[in-house]
């Protein structure tokens, strides 16, 4: 037996957790004091999406929407007594096929009512939490939009971002769903540019925070970016 599988065999499981924070690995969010990846020799990596999950208080509508209207197969369902952290409801956890082994999952908590703060809001802060599901061709993107509209679903116009073209709609819970086409693969220059943009943003954000103010605008970041790009271009290769 390898060292790794030996460790897996002895690993703790969530049923031993005594608190909510312990069960979910919830920290205080501080990054000061954490070790960077560069400090050890381990390169962690991920291999795509397994599932996304959100709560629903509209069980029947959710199943009808994803399974019967969108036509995504229901491929797995867990039904269980509440376990783990104290006060956990009995629940259903069910999964719709989203391609390449990924699934769109929901939790339905038996005997619970939707708290006010989970009511969807028409605000970009709320819509920022979403998942974009991939299609492979422009024809498929068009087919999604036209088919959903023909089935009566309100769908956004096409939106061409820099490397993505997307359509959006909402499910019965009010959750936004994005279907997107990757327009091109990212190149080395995209990574360089992302690093410089985020560096410019982090620097100017830290300066603003030190002066107890909020970043004023994107122009502030664009100006710092100009300085960073100028230095990058002039630096020896």
């Amino acid at each position, binding site marked *: 037996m390898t060292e790794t599988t030996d460790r897996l065999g002895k690993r703790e499981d969530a049923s031993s957790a005594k608190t909510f924070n312990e069960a979910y690995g919830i920290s205080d969010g501080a990054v000061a004091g954490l070790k960077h990846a560069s400090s050890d020799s381990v390169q962690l990596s991920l291999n795509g999406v397994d599932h996304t999950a959100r709560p629903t208080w509209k069980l029947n509508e959710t199943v009808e929407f994803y399974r019967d209207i969108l036509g995504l197969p229901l491929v797995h369902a867990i039904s269980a007594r509440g376990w783990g952290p104290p006060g956990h409801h009995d629940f259903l956890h069910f999964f719709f096929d989203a391609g390449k082994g990924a699934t769109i999952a929901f939790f339905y908590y038996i005997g619970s009512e939707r708290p006010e703060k989970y009511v969807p809001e028409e605000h970009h802060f709320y819509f920022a939490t979403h998942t974009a599901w991939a299609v492979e061709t422009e024809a498929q993107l068009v087919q999604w939009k036209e088919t959903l509209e023909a089935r009566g679903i309100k769908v956004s116009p096409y*939106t*061409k*971002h*820099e*490397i993505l073209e997307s359509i959006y709609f909402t499910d019965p819970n009010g959750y936004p769903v994005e279907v997107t086409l990757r327009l*091109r693969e990212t*190149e*080395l*220059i*995209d990574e*360089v*540019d992302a690093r*410089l*943009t985020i560096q*410019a943003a982090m620097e100017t954000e830290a300066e603003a925070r030190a002066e107890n103010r909020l970043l004023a605008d*994107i*122009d502030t970041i*664009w*100006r*710092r*970016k*100009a*300085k*960073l*790009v*100028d230095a*990058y*271009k002039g630096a020896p*290769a």
Partner: protein
Amino acid sequence: MITVYVVDVPEFRPMVETAEGQDGVRVSGPVKGYWTIEAATELRFNRKAMKMKPAVWYGIFTGGLNGEIADWGRDEVRVVGTNKPL
């Protein structure tokens, strides 16, 4: 002096193509993945001339802008020089 850096990818290349040949505008590059567009006092970009979708238009200075946006609209932007710190 106004300097705009344009990352050398297809989405932003129309900025370079429409700037080239404009009076008082100097285009050079790309150097290490960035085009440089310079003008002495004023620089304009037009969205329709660039055939650019809004989601890209609103980020056209993501490559870096040493200048100040004097007028910003859905279809045209006018940039002037600035002494604001970079």
